[in-house]
């Protein structure tokens, strides 16, 4: 039988503490979401809900619930609309970024043109510009273009490409054998056909990983959608949750409703991580990004 050394035991203990500390907020959110609003404060010290109910989830989704609240708090947010908006925002951002970033990454990896490396390093340098610095000029631009409160305005700064996505995919295109491109070239394939029919399908694993990373990032994106997408018709989940916080009564927020909405909103992200976690880690290791 394999014996565990004291050092290994200490390592596991430290890891266990970190896992516990990481999962605790998630568990508390779930616990509060499963607690009746009237019992939130009385059971605050407990790790398990005193009275178990799914009512918070039902009312957040606009479904009939056994929890009776005042009219102002009965429907904290239009959850389904925010969900739809988040899905649209995420889908547009992810698909756009992957397509255009892959084109740029392939060009940087495979094509030779004057100033290619300089351009790539300029691209990389852009990752060092804090996003906060770009918000104001981007906001002014989107406003002047009349794109406030539209999906076009929401996705405008990120749909084309991001330095991260370009760098990530370039690493994989570089690692794929050049002979494949050359073989296709000899067969008469154009540069775009080589990209579309050979280079891109070969990298479907890394592309899926990038898609997941971008999806998680887009799903959680708050500040930009908060700036340009305040209207309910385009308001994404993260903004809707924040609005919900500010709308509920001062000193007496609807914690159980909020937590139910938060738990529901993170289900897609958790699912992606659980299903594709290993692939994400492997791809990141291969790309040399971590």
């Amino acid at each position, binding site marked *: 039988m394999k014996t565990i050394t004291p050092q290994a035991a200490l390592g596991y203990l430290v890891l266990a503490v970190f896992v516990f500390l990481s999962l605790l907020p998630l568990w508390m959110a779930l616990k509060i979401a499963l607690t009746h609003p009237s019992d939130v404060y009385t059971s605050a010290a407990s790790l398990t809900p005193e009275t178990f109910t799914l009512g918070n989830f039902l009312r957040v989704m606009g479904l009939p619930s056994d929890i009776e609240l005042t009219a102002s708090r009965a429907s904290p947010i239009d959850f389904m609309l925010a969900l739809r908006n988040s899905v649209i925002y995420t889908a547009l951002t992810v698909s756009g970024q992957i397509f255009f970033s892959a084109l740029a990454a392939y060009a940087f990896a495979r094509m030779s043109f004057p100033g290619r490396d300089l351009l790539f390093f300029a691209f990389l340098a852009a990752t060092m510009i804090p996003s906060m610095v770009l918000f104001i000029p981007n906001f002014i631009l989107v406003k002047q273009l009349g794109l406030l409160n539209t999906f076009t305005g929401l996705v405008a700064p990120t749909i084309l490409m991001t330095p991260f996505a370009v760098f990530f995919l370039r690493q994989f295109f570089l690692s794929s054998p050049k002979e494949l491109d050359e*073989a296709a070239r*000899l*067969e008469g394939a154009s540069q775009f056909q080589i990209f579309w*029919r050979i280079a891109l399908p070969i990298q*479907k694993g890394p592309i899926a990983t990038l898609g997941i990373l971008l999806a998680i990032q887009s799903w959680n994106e708050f500040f930009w959608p908060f700036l340009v997408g305040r209207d309910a018709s385009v308001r994404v989940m993260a903004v809707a949750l924040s609005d919900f916080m500010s709308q509920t009564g001062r000193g007496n927020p609807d914690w159980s409703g909020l937590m139910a909405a938060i738990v529901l909103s993170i289900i897609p992200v958790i699912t992606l991580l659980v299903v594709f976690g290993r692939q994400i880690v492997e791809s990141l290791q291969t790309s040399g990004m971590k």
Partner: protein
Amino acid sequence: MSFLTIDNVIKQFGNLQVVKGVSIEAEKGEFIVFVGPSGCGKSTLLRMIAGLEETSEGTISIDGEDLTHADPADRHVAMVFQSYALFPHMSVYDNIAFGMQINKVPKAEIKARVLEAARILQIEALLERKPRQLSGGQRQRVAIGRAIVRKPKIFLFDEPLSNLDAELRTQMRVEIAKLHQEIGATMIYVTHDQVEAMTLADRIVVLRGGLVEQVGSPAELYDRPANLFVAGFIGSPRMTFLPGRIEAAGDAEIRVSSSAFARPQTIPGPFAHLPDVNSTVTLGLRPESFRIDATDPVLTATVEITEHLGGSTIVHARTSDGNSLVMATSGRAELCPGDALPLACIGAPHVFDAQGLSLAATRR
């Protein structure tokens, strides 16, 4: 005009000249092998024919058409890569059909041509598989299949067998030779393995340092190497080289002595050029040029290692003046390390002058 004409081509990478003015001609249906050590420019030359490398100077013509700067797809050549370069996400069928699909060949014709290639290469049962589900030899066949269906004017092979194990390499070598017989296409084949070159080629082009050392049939290169490099490169086991000195030189014959020889040897002419008397030369003897002769030995060597190959034996020995010598003998020679080996020569040695050029042949 030849089917393939490579005229004084040069390939320059920055300041580095990799191919330094190579001219080669190949006839239709010929099997030409480029052979040479690593870095001699053989693969670069092949890629220049394919159009995958720009030609810095000179011209490349195929079937009378100057294609020096033509796009690879317009050259009517097909290439089999060392790594096979099969598209990993496509089935064997799609790999073979890819070029025709790109060029919008009717589906029925694609199918017919893929099936025909699969029949020739005996891979009909593999058409639905992905490359990762194939063995090395099967992948090689698929790569060849992809080349066959295009019906190219010239097949280009870039060290296609180097990733295979020894047994499979021998088997595939025979299959490539059969394929050449069956379809009769012009083939240019790059290898660093001189056994492949000797067994496959109609003509071999020996390259070194971006230059052609000698062009000729395998027998010509073996029997009449133009210089020391070709003499040493072609033939396995290697030729034995011994230092020599010219005792007498005439048009009909020359006499050479060697510190390894018991007495001077006579080399019959004709000669391309005559060396000066007393000039130093290098004598070359093939492994099968030696025979054990205790009655009248020309030289005596001491056995170091014997390699029994079943039907023959390779003997590694050292001459009395300290040079290494390799002898091949049929059957099983019962020799032990340290044994004195009295040897006679079968035929005259090759003689190379101080510049390394053969006195008998100067074809370059």
